[in-house]
């Protein structure tokens, strides 16, 4: 397996561990691309703090910066790293133990 994949998942989980960054991602997911100023207007934190979190989210590949009107940078949510992390979660959530338990019970009931 390419080591990058695990590094990507790790960055996603680290990014999501912080409530402010979760709020920023949620705002971008529901409202679409926004500037740091837009985000500061709808979240209870300063624009400076938001800029810091956006930089970290950018490094993790979870947001991309794109030039907007009047040279204001807008941030757009990028879902690819989330999907990598989701694959990791899917592997953990696949519960073959209880599924095979159900099969054994079914066979033992003799149906």
């Amino acid at each position, binding site marked *: *397996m*390419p080591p*990058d*994949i*695990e590094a*990507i*998942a790790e960055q996603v989980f680290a990014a999501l561990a912080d409530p402010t960054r979760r709020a920023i991602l949620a705002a971008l997911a529901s409202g679409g691309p926004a500037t740091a100023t837009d985000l500061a207007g709808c979240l209870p934190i300063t624009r400076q703090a938001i800029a810091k979190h956006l930089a970290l989210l950018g490094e993790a*590949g979870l947001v991309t910066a794109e030039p907007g009107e009047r040279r204001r940078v807008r941030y*757009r949510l*990028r*879902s*690819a790293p989330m*999907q*990598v992390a*989701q*694959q*990791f*979660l*899917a*592997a*953990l*959530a*696949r519960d*073959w*133990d209880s*599924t*095979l338990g*159900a*099969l*054994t*019970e*079914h*066979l*033992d009931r003799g*149906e």
Partner: protein
Amino acid sequence: MGFPDRIERTVEVAHSPEKVWAALTTAAGLAAWFGNEATIDLRPGGSARMRWHAEGHTADMRVERVEEPRVFGFTWHIYGLPEDDPRRTYVEFTLEPAGAGTRLTVVESGFAQLPADTHRTAYDGNTQGWASELAELVSYLDAA
């Protein structure tokens, strides 16, 4: 390895491979222990579907290997990814006689199939796709 690509489990059951085979590969069998409802077209390339009533969840499977009563394999959608995501995991059941019973092994593989160098292109393409499709819809509605 912190990121499992495959999951493997083995159980020994006190029933013949033929009986286990029927539980795995017939609609009645699958509906009795796996889903609440099931349909299956048991041939390579055939479709199978399971429904879980409580969760309101449906799983569409594609039958890949049918070697009665030894190997049954299918692919299905990766749980948690969007419905239209083409990536699937492969599930293979292997039945081996063990005394009067059966040793049943299930291997599900493909959880980490995303190629690191191409995913950025693929997904950015997808995101852009939605943006331009929505723009097309808007101009269509505006023109009407």
